[in-house]
């Protein structure tokens, strides 16, 4: 269960309304693949991931990043029921994709870094705190159906 105060909820939705989901998703996923190269293991079919420029410019990375962030946005709309919202995705990541849930925490932290980079001063410690709660909640929800 993620407990966001009213102020935190406002801060998060306020900032999110300014997020360019198309760009931020691709950037977050790209940075994950560059900074934590073992995460590339899930993306053999994506083509050239041989260096940072190749990863960040890769069309499949950008497209998949957008997909991931769209899913995350669903979580934002359903903060009170993250486990329910991500139940199907959790089963998928366990049974079909075989992704170690630790990687969800890594991606959450990369997303926080990307948001900080984009929003600068606006990404105050308080706003970061709210997003950390959210990303941890989503990561936990995605791991919930693992067996």
């Amino acid at each position, binding site marked *: 269960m993620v407990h966001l105060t009213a102020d935190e909820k406002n801060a998060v939705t306020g900032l999110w309304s300014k997020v360019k989901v198309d760009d931020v998703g691709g950037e977050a996923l790209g940075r994950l693949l*560059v900074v934590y190269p073992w995460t590339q293991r899930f993306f053999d079919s994506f083509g050239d991931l041989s260096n*940072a420029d190749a990863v*960040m410019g890769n069309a499949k990375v950008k497209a998949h990043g957008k997909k991931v962030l769209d899913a995350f946005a669903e979580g934002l709309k359903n903060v009170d029921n993250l486990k329910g919202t991500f139940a199907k995705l959790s089963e998928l990541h366990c049974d079909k994709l075989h992704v170690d849930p630790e990687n969800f925490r890594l991606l959450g932290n990369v997303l926080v*870094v990307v948001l*900080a980079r984009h929003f600068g001063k606006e*990404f105050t410690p308080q706003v*970061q*705190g709210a997003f950390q709660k959210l990303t941890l909640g989503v990561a936990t929800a995605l791991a919930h159906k693992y067996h």
Partner: protein
Amino acid sequence: MALAAADQAAVRALWRKLNNNVGVYTTEALERTFLAFPSTKTYFAHLDLRPGSAQVKAHGQKVADALSLAVAHLDDLPRALAPLSDLHAHQLRVNPANFELLGHCLLVTLARHYPGDFSPALQASLDRFLRHVTSALASSYR
């Protein structure tokens, strides 16, 4: 295994750019850590942790000095950080998982202050540097 040459070069270059302001960023990183990961405050019950606190600023400067020491000894971090490792292990007894939390918040702080410089490659180099520091700090634990 020491930090790769390319990572060392990137970290040194960034540190030259940060100049005498490292303390500003480590203080902000501490502030972010306390807010985002409240359990970390348990180690600082003796300090005034309110935003703008002089004590947090002083502690931020200590962290900055330690990181600058690390940057000056990238080829031999375990030896350079041995005294700090002993301190954290035996006297302060800080759970080493917390070093990663501060490291993450330092990355967030640098990303927010230097968006143009904070390329994926620099992020990767910094992340690896901080993990080496964390590892060296945790080396005396048991």
